[in-house]
């Protein structure tokens, strides 16, 4: 009877061996995968087991961590001026993951980044807990405040850049939300309310919403005209009949806003009074391909990582009449406020477009800088000479055209207004646009784009960018100029 007993011994050994192999598979081969599984609650528990590093603007922390008495999480994220900074910080929630900088720089903020390995090890040896690093942003607190207060209870967004470097100075979106209200483990109701709000307070309009650009797009069209040699300078007469009919249509006229002196107007005059006919014809003369190329040089048709990703602004392939309409920003081309700030910035920086960014430095808990962002040139949408011509005519717009509301004493300001119609038969409330830059002896320190979504209470004719959006742009520029000194 011993032979079968021995076989049973082997069989039992095999059972244990199978368990051991399985255990090696789980705890060695698959361990990392299971550790970081999206359902693995330990990731979140670890994230909130110590105070997170902070996001910093102008040397001031705009985030914080608060000790809680929850079972799972020891600390909770808090935000100072949450609604104002939400488009920059994003949120970090114990229940709903995180987004934007909070998500992208999570490893630094929690202290898990590889570059913090030395710090971690030292802290472990000295018995201190793990600490998170800080994220130092490029934002300008005064400019942000001007932008956020300027938008007030209107729906819209502001993006401001330093044209010389691409630093993002202001990034505001309204209506906004306070990320503190959804940071905790028990904030499910608040989160649901926010996601269900039809005004979309969690939408980062400055980066994630695209709008028809309206007349502000004429700056891109003008630079396409100069770059492609369609017109040699901005002060000679253009070949612009009035009335002008859209190509390939049975006599559909492109109308101007009122009775404007647009017949054969110079580019300067056409931009000053915002002639649809002149720029529509420029776009039609250049054709879809050349317009798309120029738009792409300004950053269209691809996402932009700041590092928070901005959705692509679109200048699509289109038929001739639509392409002509796109030249005045009234077809299927769509832009983010950041994109229009980049257009203004490229012109202000003598044609050189700098890559926009908002994370300046990553700093270890011991204040060592572990990463420093260096400004990079993104492209050169127009030559320096042409850029200066465009500056000159944009300055005319502010001096004596539709953008006078943005005038600042003692500083050269260039701008362009826009009022974008949208919806079926233009039934939607129009969008008021204003893009501008200010220029001092040290080059241009600020370019800004403002968009305001009109609501039902706004009179239609009252929406023109010059009246609603330009004052906000002006106060943002002033804030930057003041801190610049």
């Amino acid at each position, binding site marked *: 009877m011993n032979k079968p007993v021995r076989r049973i011994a082997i069989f039992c050994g095999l059972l244990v061996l199978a*368990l051991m192999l399985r255990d090696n598979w789980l705890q060695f081969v698959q361990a990392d995968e299971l550790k970081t599984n999206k359902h693995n609650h330990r990731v979140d528990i670890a994230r909130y087991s110590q105070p997170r590093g902070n996001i910093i603007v102008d040397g001031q922390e705009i985030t914080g961590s608060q000790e809680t008495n929850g079972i799972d999480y020891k600390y909770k994220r808090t935000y100072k001026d949450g609604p104002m900074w939400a488009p920059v910080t994003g949120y970090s929630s114990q229940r709903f993951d995180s987004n934007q900088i909070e998500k992208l720089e999570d490893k630094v903020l929690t202290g898990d980044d590889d570059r913090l390995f030395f710090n971690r090890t030292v802290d472990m040896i000295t018995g201190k807990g793990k600490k998170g690093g800080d994220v130092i942003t490029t934002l300008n607190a005064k400019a942000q405040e001007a932008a956020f207060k300027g938008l007030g209870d209107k729906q819209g967004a502001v993006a401001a850049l330093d044209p010389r470097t691409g630093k993002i100075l202001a990034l505001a979106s309204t209506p906004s939300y306070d990320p503190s209200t959804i940071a905790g483990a028990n904030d499910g109701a608040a989160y649901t309310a926010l996601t269900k709000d039809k005004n979309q307070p969690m939408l980062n309009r400055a980066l994630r919403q695209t709008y028809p650009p309206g007349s502000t797009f004429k700056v891109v069209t003008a630079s396409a005209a100069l770059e492609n040699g369609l017109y040699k300078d901005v002060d000679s007469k253009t070949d612009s009949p009035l009335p002008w009919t859209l190509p390939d249509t049975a006599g559909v006229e492109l109308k101007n806003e009122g009775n404007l002196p647009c017949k054969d107007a110079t580019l300067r005059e056409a931009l000053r009074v915002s002639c649809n006919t002149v720029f529509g014809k420029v776009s039609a003369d250049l054709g879809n391909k050349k317009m798309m190329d120029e738009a792409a040089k300004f950053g269209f048709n691809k996402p932009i990582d700041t590092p928070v990703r901005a959705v692509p602004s679109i200048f699509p392939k289109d038929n001739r009449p639509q392409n002509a309409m796109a030249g005045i920003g009234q077809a299927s081309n769509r832009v983010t406020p950041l994109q229009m700030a980049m257009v203004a910035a490229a012109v202000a920086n003598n044609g050189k477009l700098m890559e926009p960014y908002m994370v300046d430095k990553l700093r270890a808990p011991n204040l060592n800088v572990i990463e420093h962002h260096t400004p990079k040139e993104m492209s050169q949408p127009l030559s320096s000479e042409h850029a200066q011509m465009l500056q000159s005519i944009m300055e005319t717009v502010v001096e004596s055209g539709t953008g006078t509301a943005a005038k600042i004493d003692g500083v050269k300001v260039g701008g362009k207004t826009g009022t974008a119609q949208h919806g079926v038969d233009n039934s939607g409330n129009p969008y008021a646009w204003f893009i501008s830059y200010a220029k001092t002896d040290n080059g241009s320190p600020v370019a800004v784009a403002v968009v305001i979504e009109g609501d039902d209470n706004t009179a239609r004719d009252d929406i023109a960018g010059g009246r609603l959006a330009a004052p906000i742009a002006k106060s943002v520029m002033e804030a930057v100029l003041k801190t610049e000194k």
Partner: protein
Amino acid sequence: MSHTSNTTTISTAGAPSRRNTELALLAFAVIIPCFAYANVGLALHGEMPSGMLGYGIGLGLLAGVGHLVVRKFAKYADPLLLPLAALLNGIGLVLIWRLDQSPRLAQLAKNQGFKFVPSAPNQMLYSALGIGLFVAVVIFLKDHRILQRYTYISMAVALGLLIAPMFFPAKFGARIWITLPGLGSLQPGEFAKIVLSIFFAGYLMVKRDALALASRRFMGMYLPRGRDLGPILAVWALSILVLVFETDLGTSLLFFGMFVVMLYVATERTSWIVFGLLMSAVGAVGVASFEAHVQARVNAWLDPFGGWGKSAASEQISQALMSFGSGGVFGAGWGQGYSDLIGFAANSDFILGTVGEELGLAGVMAILLIYGLIVERGVRTALAARDPFGKLLACGLSGAFAIQVFVVAGGVMGLIPLTGMTMPFMAYGGSSVLANWALVAILIKISDTARRPAPAPAPSPDAEMTQVVRP
């Protein structure tokens, strides 16, 4: 049986009793859990746990009593079984105490409307009762062969134990409990395991020749006669009934597996194994095709993360898998894991998850080796046993133990579909602790008989008369 002596430790010269080895090992088996206990306290509260002294003394006393009784009543018993069982029991106590400290589990109990009761004190009581049962078996079971007399009574008792839970309400999706109002609940399946192995051993010992020899050869296999198929069919039917009416896949698998193992050992016919595997496959697939409870378990096994948020079974098995994965090779350390996220049954069926997370791959391998050692010591006892009944019984008990470990550990680690069973000695639960201590006691008795030196031949009355005549 004639050639056993060359493979066993038996010799008339008298094997060393190895009682001192056992004592030394027992010291380790007490000290290791004490260190573990201190470790948990330091990790969780930053200080030595207040119950440390009581726990150490308690565990030491239990182990000491066990040892003394073995020294007195089973002098030649296997020296490893008691220390290994005591070590697992001690570690289990620490794990249960560690999970008692989890605010997450306390909150879970509160949310479900229960009052949170710490399990460790109960488990300590069960362990004491378990050692008590162990002591009683070692003292009062003079010879394991006595059990042979109760072959058919055992059958009746086993049937009773197996059928009884059908008349009690299902708990947590399985009908394996007998609830006695005011006294708590009992898992008769754990005891049925032992009683049934006594029946099988007694029955097979008598019938083995008929089963082994009266067969026809067909396609290279010995097919049993139709009438000899009766017993295996009956046991198969019983295990299927258990599966269907008690929705308890684990117990069903355990009994059938144990029976096939013992049948094979008794008859030395491989054909029985083939039959057994075929029948269990047919039974399992057949039942799975209409039992929703079994289907859910199988689905959770095939794709644990796929059922996240939809099926509690899937969620629990994925939590267990993440526990193992998060432990990695060396584990998080005592008291520093989050295996309490497993939630329900974290300290019973899923206790291995806590080992995996806090002690890591290294710890789980060690625990599995300890289980493996217990089984191999049991099988070794079977080899050494001099009577067929003892052989069969030891083999059946160790086989059942091995299958139980495989079924529950394999289930928790996602190797096979999860079935509700407890890790012997470690998991929380009175029935399990008591039954397994009794099991070890029987093995100890068998091994004592096996290793006991054969009585010296009686002196021949003629011895004096024989003279050696030297030339």
